[in-house]
């Protein structure tokens, strides 16, 4: 960990990054990224409430910044097509405005059919019936004063457009890029420079059951002094809407409303903040292939502790302790404990 980075927890004095925080960042960073690896479920028990989940997400985000495949650009057009299909075939005719959980329609979020472009920041365009799914051609209606015109674009140029209320897949100008300097927590991290201007949804932070605001506040209580600037953890992990960053490298699942912040396929890793969030994620079908890292504090009622214990016991029917990964970790700070299970080979 670089000594030039200073740390402050809940407005305490600045100090070098403490070992417990370093451990959590390192854990996120060293989490196996290879998709061929068996699914893993980890539970970290903390002796107090903290933004530990945010730190694990930060570590995993740094690792993703080094992965040339970790971006939303490559599958962007397919995603827009799926979104258009959902809008035209399911959401537009649907009478329930709109809760996919209640409608049980199988979608995680409502599709409004609106697209936005960084080049037209004050406008949205509406996906049109003229969209041809067989020819993979999205069409939309663009207003120009009093006139409406139908627009079709080639797929390769569609990275200019993104789903409304979501981060763009990439940013074209230098002012919207993330600064590599902010993420030099791991000295040896081999960053892939393109990633600093591309969004990514494969890493997900599942927030507290108190909602997005509670999750954001606890992350904001942890601050880093990097060079001459100060940054809250909520800013560094670039959850969409938590800061004024243009791109987002961590998607957010609101455990209270069970909604994603974006139209997203199953994330590769979910970091769950709190017991209720962990239990919700572990039982949600959308995440059944995702790696899960649950972070809890153990100052809670026995019933809630039992629910977690029962969940881990139930998982052991199909999972086994991941001794290789546990033994590869640095020494666990006193007061913290961690259990990692990996899916058994059939």
């Amino acid at each position, binding site marked *: 960990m670089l000594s030039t980075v200073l*740390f402050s*927890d*809940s407005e*305490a004095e600045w*100090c070098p990054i*403490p*070992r*417990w*925080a370093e451990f959590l960042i390192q854990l996120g960073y060293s989490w196996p990224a290879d998709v061929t690896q068996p699914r893993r479920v980890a*539970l*970290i*028990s*903390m*002796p*107090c*409430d*903290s*933004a*530990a989940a945010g730190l694990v997400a930060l570590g995993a985000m740094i690792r993703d910044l080094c992965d040339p495949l970790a971006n939303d650009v490559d599958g962007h057009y397919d995603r827009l097509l799926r979104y258009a299909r959902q809008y035209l075939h399911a959401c537009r005719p649907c009478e329930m405005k709109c809760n996919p959980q209640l409608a049980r329609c199988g979608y995680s979020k409502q599709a409004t059919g609106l697209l936005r472009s960084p080049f037209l920041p004050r406008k949205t365009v509406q996906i049109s019936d003229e969209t041809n799914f067989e020819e993979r051609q999205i069409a939309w209606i663009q207003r120009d004063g009093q006139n409406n015109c139908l627009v079709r674009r080639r797929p390769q140029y569609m990275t200019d457009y993104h789903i409304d209320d979501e981060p763009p897949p990439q940013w074209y100008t230098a002012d919207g890029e993330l600064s590599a300097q902010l993420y030099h927590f791991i000295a040896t991290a081999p960053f892939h420079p393109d990633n600093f201007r591309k969004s990514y949804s494969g890493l997900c932070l599942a927030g507290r*059951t*108190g*909602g997005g*605001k509670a999750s954001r506040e606890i992350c904001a209580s942890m601050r880093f002094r990097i060079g001459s600037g100060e940054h809250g953890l909520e800013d560094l992990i670039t959850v969409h809407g938590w800061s004024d960053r243009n791109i987002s490298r961590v998607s957010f699942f609101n455990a*209270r409303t069970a909604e994603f912040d974006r139209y997203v396929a199953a994330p590769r890793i979910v970091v769950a903040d709190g017991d*209720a969030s962990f239990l919700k994620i572990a039982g949600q079908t959308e995440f059944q292939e995702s790696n899960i890292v649950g972070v*809890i*504090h*153990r*100052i*809670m*009622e*026995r*019933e*809630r*502790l*039992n629910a*977690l*214990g029962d969940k*881990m016991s139930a998982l*052991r029917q199909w999972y*086994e*302790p*991941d*001794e290789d990964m*546990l033994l590869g*970790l640095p020494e*666990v*700070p*006193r*007061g*913290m*404990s*961690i*259990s*990692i*299970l990996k899916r058994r080979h059939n």
Partner: protein
Amino acid sequence: MPATASLVFDFFENHPSFSIERHEIAMAAFGVLRRSMRSIVVSLRDGGDHEACETADRLRSSLSEWLTVPVPFDGAILAALQTIGSPVELEARWGRDIRNAFDSALCAAQSIQLIQNPIRERLRAVIRDLDVGGLPFRIYCHRTARAHFESLFTKPEDALLGEVTFLHSVCDYRDSDTFDTLIKVGPFRSWGWGSAPDAIKAAPRFGTLVQIVWAGCADEPGFGYDPVAPSASETTGSAAQAADESALGTRISWTQRVTRFGDDDGPTAGYSSEDDEFQVFGRLNQPGQKRRATLVQIDGEQGILYLPHSQVLSFDPATGTDVPVGHRLPGETLLPGMFVILPQHDDLDLGGSQIQAGFFSSVWKTRLAAEYMADPCGLVGRLKANGIRLLNLHSSVGRWSRTSSGVLPAPGDRCHFQMLIQVLRVGLDGVTPPKHEGGPWWQSAWNEIRHARGDAIQTGRHEHQLIDEELLGILGGLLPAIRCEAAATKAFPLVIPSDRALHGSFSFYKILSTEDGFLAPDTELNAVRELNTIYQWRA
């Protein structure tokens, strides 16, 4: 100010081991009182009738309190015993053995009035020592027990407890900073009387735990549970905890020192687990007809018991909250500082269930009404003889024979219905509806009842949902008034505006605390009750 994560981890680094100083107190007269009461409770619970169980619950509750709270030995103990009746009455109701045990308990209660409660003396000595040493300490106790701690130092020269911080709940403990010593009276249990957070042992914020406890009251096995407890070699004291072989970390290490005070040469020398009231009562107090409940305390005197997964209508006064009025889970999303909302309203006329009289019901109900009118006692006698053993069978038959309300009411049990049809001898005349597909007549009639019940339940659910939506709409419109009242007072009513479909009012109660660990019957749930009444349901 809660301790930051860095402070807590630093604290752990500086404390390789934590210590428990267990002070076990014994006292002959109090031992007699305990044994006598325990034997009465066990006998009454074995006896089984409702009144006996209620009396046993009251005695169990009182004894549990005396074992976990530093109560003064004054007339209150004797008075609590006398509330269940006189020795003569007890003998008349439950026999000689109970009377003998009760006599012993009364005698012991009278004799201890002349003595100081040794738990209080020990507690006073411990607190004085900590104060002299300048060591910061906290006391963990239930909110209602606080007065008994404060009464230890009533003299001006002993004005110590003004500076003491009490911890009453998991939230209090979570929000506390680090300190030197935690004091706890009574055994460690995860719920019910003497309950405390497992985190006291799984995530200590203090170096020394002083536990003052009556002899024989053992801690609950496995207290200090951590679902990710590592199976490290450093285990003492809490070795009974389940270790997780897949977990990595350093288990919290405790060293325990037990000091015994006082003497009790009662009939059983020393105590075994058989004599531990909490284990004995735990076995007696199995859930049975009761359900687990969470207490939401709304002031110093009153509270409401909710099922743990109830969706409680509530208001969150915090500014900036996304959903100020909504349904929340007690203890999880319904937290101290928020307001419970209890609506009182007239019925909303939604048209009711459209259950029409069916073909079969019109036949059997007409026959039942005719036979009941002709010879009520004879009919009821025949039904009883055929095996329908219901209390108030007369009134049940009266209800079942009503044809004006459609298919229902009808017997709730399939066997009872079959017997009823056999007694009435209906369906033997060959008259069947056009779509009757064969099978016994009573079976088709029973299917008609089942369908009607399904409709009625569905209608009830639908109505409940509509009322709920209407209430939320009304509360949304009243938000400015609610905020204004909530800022000024802890409990207030609000009348539903007259232009709404529902008529009535809301009662708002500010939540003081929430507490798990109750086993209560359905009749005690979701209603405001005196805390003294509620505490008898503490497990």
